[in-house]
């Protein structure tokens, strides 16, 4: 792509990635969560692929790193689901405990990050899974398209 597209992509990509992480972490206070923030982060990766080409992005994001990230997110999600098995499957056992344990007052409040039990941890796990999954799909398709473009 041209010089202007590459210069603007270098300037704006850190803002997009940071906004995606913000939407993931504040999923239990504001609208958003794991899936939405992961999609925003993956759209930043898509901007990098379009501006700089799939070959250069592949040197940064190798395939086994993305695979470890996705599998780690899935295992963390299932681990949190099984950890409250003493009462029920998917029980929120961290409400009231020292980790993420505050309970807000009833009605319209200001919004405290240190609330909601296992829900922020599940947001992080699902966010990791969506980031790695969507980046792997886009990278595989872009590499296949650029390789078949060279062969002709």
């Amino acid at each position: 792509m041209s010089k202007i597209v590459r210069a603007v992509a270098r300037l704006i990509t850190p803002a997009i990635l940071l906004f995606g992480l913000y939407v993931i972490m504040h999923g239990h206070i504001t609208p958003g969560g794991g899936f939405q923030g992961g999609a925003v982060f993956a759209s930043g990766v898509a901007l990098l692929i379009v501006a700089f080409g799939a070959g250069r992005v592949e040197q940064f994001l190798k395939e086994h790193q993305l695979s470890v990230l996705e599998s780690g997110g899935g295992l963390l999600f299932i681990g949190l689901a099984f950890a409250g098995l003493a009462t029920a499957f998917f029980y929120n056992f961290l409400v009231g405990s020292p980790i993420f344990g505050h309970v807000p007052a009833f009605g319209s409040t200001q919004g405290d990050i240190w609330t909601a039990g296992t829900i922020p941890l599940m947001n992080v796990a699902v966010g990791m899974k969506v980031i790695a999954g969507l980046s792997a799909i886009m990278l595989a398709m872009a590499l296949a398209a650029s390789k078949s473009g060279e062969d002709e």
Partner: protein
Amino acid sequence: MNEFLTNIPFLAVAALICVAVYVMMSQRNLIKIVMGVVILESAVNLFLVALGYREGGVAPIFTNAPGTLMVLPVPQALTLTSIVIGVATTALMLSLIMLIYRHTGETDAEKSRRVKG
């Protein structure tokens, strides 16, 4: 006549479903058929969200909430799952089309029916 004015979101869903079925049946290029499937999924997601609207309600979030009458939260959760499954289906369909093009050199649904080798 009053039902036409109050049920406009449901009429929009019915129109989108008819457009999507027409695109899926009449086009020959494989990528345009995939576009028809995507329009159908968007219509169903719109229907799910429109089912849960309460007159005069706000978003079901308690942080600095401007009112106490809230929209139903469960249809929004089901729509979230449906959107993610739509993304997975579209990614698989598009990658299969890329493999068909690499194997036969055509993107026409009638001309690429013969699988060689």
